[in-house]
């Protein structure tokens, strides 16, 4: 029953996905750090059966996936921070990693500039992460502020 309710919530949420901030409400956009995998329990059965519940997501065009990462690269990075918040944060702490690289790619950061992006995020960890209750949105905003002030990376944020 719980799963059913969660599924229904997902459906309702997904219909308003375009009205939400990039990333949508189920991407962990407003999630605090260490929230874990939101929506994971609701999806659990679907995933263990290699199945799909209800609407099969089909790229972005259906708009029913509840976690649309906007195609525009300037917003893509922001959405990716929310989508992989915990993994990204751990990578920022270490200064490298796939999730960090993925966020860079989503911001459209070219391969030559990715090391600079990683260093910027890593060295400014304290500025990005003000407490354990920081949200993905706050971190992304802090990150973009840093990028804007950086000669090499400012071109990736408008």
């Amino acid at each position: 029953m719980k799963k059913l309710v969660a599924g229904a919530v997902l459906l309702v949420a997904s219909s308003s996905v375009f009205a939400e901030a990039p990333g949508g409400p189920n991407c962990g956009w407003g999630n605090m750090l260490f929230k874990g995998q939101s929506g994971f329990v609701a999806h659990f059965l679907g995933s263990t059966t290699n199945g799909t519940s209800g609407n099969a997501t089909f790229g972005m065009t259906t708009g029913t996936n509840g976690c649309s990462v906007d195609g525009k690269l300037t917003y893509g990075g922001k959405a990716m921070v929310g989508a992989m918040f915990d993994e990204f944060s751990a990578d920022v702490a270490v200064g490298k990693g796939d999730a960090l690289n993925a966020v860079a790619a989503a911001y459209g950061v070219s391969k030559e500039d990715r090391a600079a992006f990683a260093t910027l995020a890593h060295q400014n960890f304290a500025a990005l992460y003000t407490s354990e209750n920081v949200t993905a949105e706050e971190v992304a905003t802090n990150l973009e502020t840093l990028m804007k002030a950086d000669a090499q990376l400012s071109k990736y944020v408008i």
Partner: protein
Amino acid sequence: MPGFSFERPEAMYTTRALVPILIVLFALLPMPTWSAGTAWEQAQASELWQRNEWIKLGHYKPATWPGSWRSQTEDSRFFMAANGAVDPRAELQATLEGFAASAESGDEHAQCRFVARLSWLRGELDLGDLPQPDCAKYREFREQVNATQAVLVFPSYYLNSPSSMFGHTLLRLDPGEADGGSEYLSFAVNFGALVDPNDNGMFYAFKGLAGGYDGQFEVDHYYKKIREYNHGENRDIWEYPLNLTAEETERLIQHLWELRRINFAYYFFDENCSYRILEMLEVARPGLDLTSAFPLTAIPIDTVREVERSGLVRDKHFRPAQGTVLKQRLEGVPPRLRELVIEVSRAPDRLDDADVQALDPATRALLIDSAYKYLRYTQTGVERDPEVAQRSFRLLQALQAQAADLPPPAAQPDPATSPDLSHGSRRLAVGAWNEDGRDYVSLGLRMSLHSLPENRNGFPAGAQINLGNFDLRVEDDGKVDLNRFDVVDILSLSPRDRFFKPLSWAVRTGVERQWTDDREHRVAHINGGVGATRTLWADNRIYGLATARLENNYGFAEPLQPALGLRGGLLFNAGPVILHWELSAEKFANGELRKIADLSHNLRLSRNQALHLELLWRDQQPDDRLAVGLRYQYYY
């Protein structure tokens, strides 16, 4: 499916609503049928509908009647002709007519819906000047799924779900060479059953066998798959980049679009996720035949091997599960400091103590990283706890401060242990037995997959996954009899230590022979057990399970008897030999006590051959019996 609403594609309704309008339009306007006419004449001249490409695009398979066809989907949205599902010729004709129809229907136009058909037919026929509908939705999809390369992905065996224990396959579509990050944003193409969230895994397996589910393709970001498999289910992922060209990848994406929201019956054993992926590859590269190797079952890893055999695989990449990463990290921590990992994860302030401060920087960094990873691992699937979040954050801060000292992560696993290099999924066995002076020969066929004493290369250690194991015996007088038939036989022996606390468990059901009342009876049984496993040293394990059993045995006065028992055993590796020794005792409700000692020794001869020596001692009052058997096993 109760309580579950499929979003019906608005396309269907619009099309229906449009039909009368279109008829009127057709009657009024001069129709551009001349081009369809000539194209159709050309198609008829070469009997184009018989071509392999068309057959694959329509998912046609030979039907019972020779020369007849039936598509694997009966979804009317996939066909232009009313009888398109059984008539490739009519479908081709209707498709050509659809292409030539007036462009106003936009996204619903045949050219927009059947982009792969259009692209193939353009190459085969002179289609003339077709109307040019605005395919806005497809354009958007194509911009999103902007790939030139494809990767076959195998999330490894997952014993905790009946439907995932054989693993899974999906495709990933990359815009360029993967660079450790950008593939997170790639799209994953997954064929799955549309499940009812109220069905449990076991029910799913049964319903899946009968084709009770519809399956559809799903296209979603790969990072979600990473979360789902690597993090949520703690499964390693193996990725096999394919050598599809940009053009072949394009064809795959075009066909994928044609299959958007198209229902296929989903069968767990054969027409499953892995089978449909093979079909996609056949469309991508015409002339490939991958599916005919799987008339009965399509075990995911066998489909990976088939794709390798066809020369499509150009590389191999390992993406470890969260637990695997943690294990690798912990192996780098000196044993004397492992308890400290747990202490630090519980109280990060420990890091400020003199003894921890005194550690060399690399070890301290490793300690912090391990403690952080361990703490996060324990929180998988758990609600956020503010206190745990605080500790996690403290560790993350410490990690950031000392990141420069962190040694690089442990080496990648040996590609020679990838799952595609495991022994074959099916097994033939022939054995010679002696049981208290009586000789017989055994003939065995196991449909899948792996037992503990067998060559474990490519399998997760401690996982036994068998489905459909038949064993016949031929007595020396020529009499043939059933020795055993295991429907399901799963044993999961994951060791417990201070970091990981998995339960070990077993489930087995089928028919086997048991001595009762001085006669051997064929009995039907179901049994299961739960317990724990410890590592002795290296990868040698000891385990114990408490068991419960239900047996139907006509040797008993009251045939159906429950029993409770214990079983315990050892699993040793000695070079090419693996030993699996097990003792078990079961007490039946009617007072019978059954004691068994089963000693298995498996000598690996090659990847796909083994010799198996078994000593089976059974004590069931009044007598005990000893059987000795030597078996040759061949995997394919």
